[in-house]
């Protein structure tokens, strides 16, 4: 069980040019699936880097299970929060896929068959189980990104944080990311993901947090965040609702953030008319 709480979180990078985070209050409860969205430069990546101690607050606090994370070393936080970078090449370093994925769980103390199981389980989850002995750099960009995901997945942390898991992925890769998130959530673990893909967000997450200029401006379930009354606030952050939400609103069908929700609402509407 791991609860993350941000209290008045402020982050100013050393050049002092921008307050990347300008007072964020946010509680992420155990087992939640939370999408973090917002304009380029709104502070999303800066925020998630506080969750595993890669960045430390300029002001405010990060509480992990009620304990101030300032007292944790990065290695201690890494047992609780696994972070997958946006750019896999900032993360991948080993000469084989197996060594890459084994690094994290090995550092957590796993050995022998337990280590093997963690590695093969994570690679199977992302569909790279046939590539154990491949060099990561012989894989294309999309598969390197899935490898980076597997190497954090293998650590089995109670919290998984993904920075733009679907960029550069084809439909199959997006589906893989969606399934991994669903499986991790089904195990009762927490998932926090940054994404610009509103269709993916609406279909995969139960809660959407919208950032603008380092502050939280909207926070709620996809049905609420993409409903017509939220459009002005979304527009102020340069976001657009997914197409089914727009179509549902135009037809007066209420909150329909996903294709499935829209089709179901349309069917109910037509049955009423009959």
């Amino acid at each position, binding site marked *: 069980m791991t609860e993350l709480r941000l209290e008045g979180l402020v982050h100013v990078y050393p050049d002092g040019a921008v307050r990347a985070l300008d007072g964020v209050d946010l509680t992420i409860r155990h087992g939640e699936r939370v999408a973090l969205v917002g304009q380029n430069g709104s502070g999303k990546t800066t925020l998630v880097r506080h969750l595993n101690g890669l960045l430390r607050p300029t002001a405010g606090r990060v509480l992990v299970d009620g304990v101030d994370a300032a007292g944790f070393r990065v290695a201690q936080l890494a047992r609780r929060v696994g972070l997958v970078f946006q750019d896999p090449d900032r993360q991948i370093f080993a000469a084989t896929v197996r060594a890459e994925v084994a690094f994290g769980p090995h550092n957590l103390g796993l050995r022998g068959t337990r280590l093997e199981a963690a590695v093969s389980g994570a690679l199977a989850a992302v569909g790279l189980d046939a590539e154990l002995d491949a060099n990561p750099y012989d894989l294309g960009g999309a598969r390197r990104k899935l490898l980076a995901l597997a190497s954090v997945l293998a650590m089995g942390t109670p919290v998984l944080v993904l920075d733009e898991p679907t960029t550069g992925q084809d439909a199959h890769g997006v589906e893989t990311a969606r399934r991994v998130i669903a499986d991790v959530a089904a195990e009762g673990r927490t998932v926090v993901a940054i994404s610009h893909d509103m269709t993916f967000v609406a279909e995969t997450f139960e809660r959407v947090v919208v950032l603008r200029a380092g502050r939280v401006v909207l926070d709620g379930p996809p049905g609420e965040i993409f409903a017509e009354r939220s459009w002005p606030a979304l527009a102020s952050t340069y976001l657009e609702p997914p197409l089914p939400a727009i179509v549902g609103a*135009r037809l007066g069908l209420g909150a329909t953030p996903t294709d499935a929700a829209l089709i179901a609402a349309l069917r109910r509407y037509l049955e009423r008319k009959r």
Partner: protein
Amino acid sequence: MLELESVTYRYAGATEPAVHDVTIRLAASEVVGLCGPSESGKTTLCLIASGLAPRAIRGTLAGRLLVDGADVAGRPMHELVSRAGICFQDPTTQLSGVNATVYEEVAFGPMNLGLPRSDVVARTEQALETLRIGDLAMRDPSRLSGGQLQLVAIAGLLAMRAAHLILDEPTAELDPAGTRLVGDAIEELAAAGTSILIAEQRTDLLARICQRVLILRGGRVAFEGPADEVLADPRLEELGGAPPSAVRLRREAIAAGIDVGAVDRAIAAGATA
């Protein structure tokens, strides 16, 4: 006109070609999309079209790259860059890493073309304005977010004002507004005569900007044609492509036996909202 004439490319050390016998012709003002699953050859085709493969990326090219009718085999890269410009998938690969501000980064390309200072300034400012990143001008590129960096990389390319542009997933890290701005910039450039080749997984963007789309599989063209037909072709999904939102929604409405006319009207109304 930018032409790839039956190009086949094998990377140095690879046993199989990454691209087999692909022909693409881009006329002035034409926007052509490349779509297909990961590792289907999109990036390799972009590298060939820009002349970087095999000049900077080692490998063997069969077939020809023609720029405005001339075979450019053997011509050096510096002759090509003012004619055909490429934007890489990863902005950190694109950026020089030597400029202290975004302004200098965007001005870097035109300065290296040896243009008069006033031209460099005009091009830089126009490129920053087109992508609405004027407020980033004095920022340090190494301190920007991934999406901001991508816009800076595209601005740097726009400032080169090449007749042919090759864009490899230019919106991968962009928010919807950034994606729309890049789409607007592509439409404006095409209207002014630029030919544009764009590799992209976001079929919503391709549907908006492309006249023609090629779907790739295993380094070959699986099928191609007018954008609206290709993106609505059921084979796209079989190849691991995601159809545009409107195509998907329409298809699901039909499958559910719902009056598709109402859905079409709502999609049209939504698109203009």
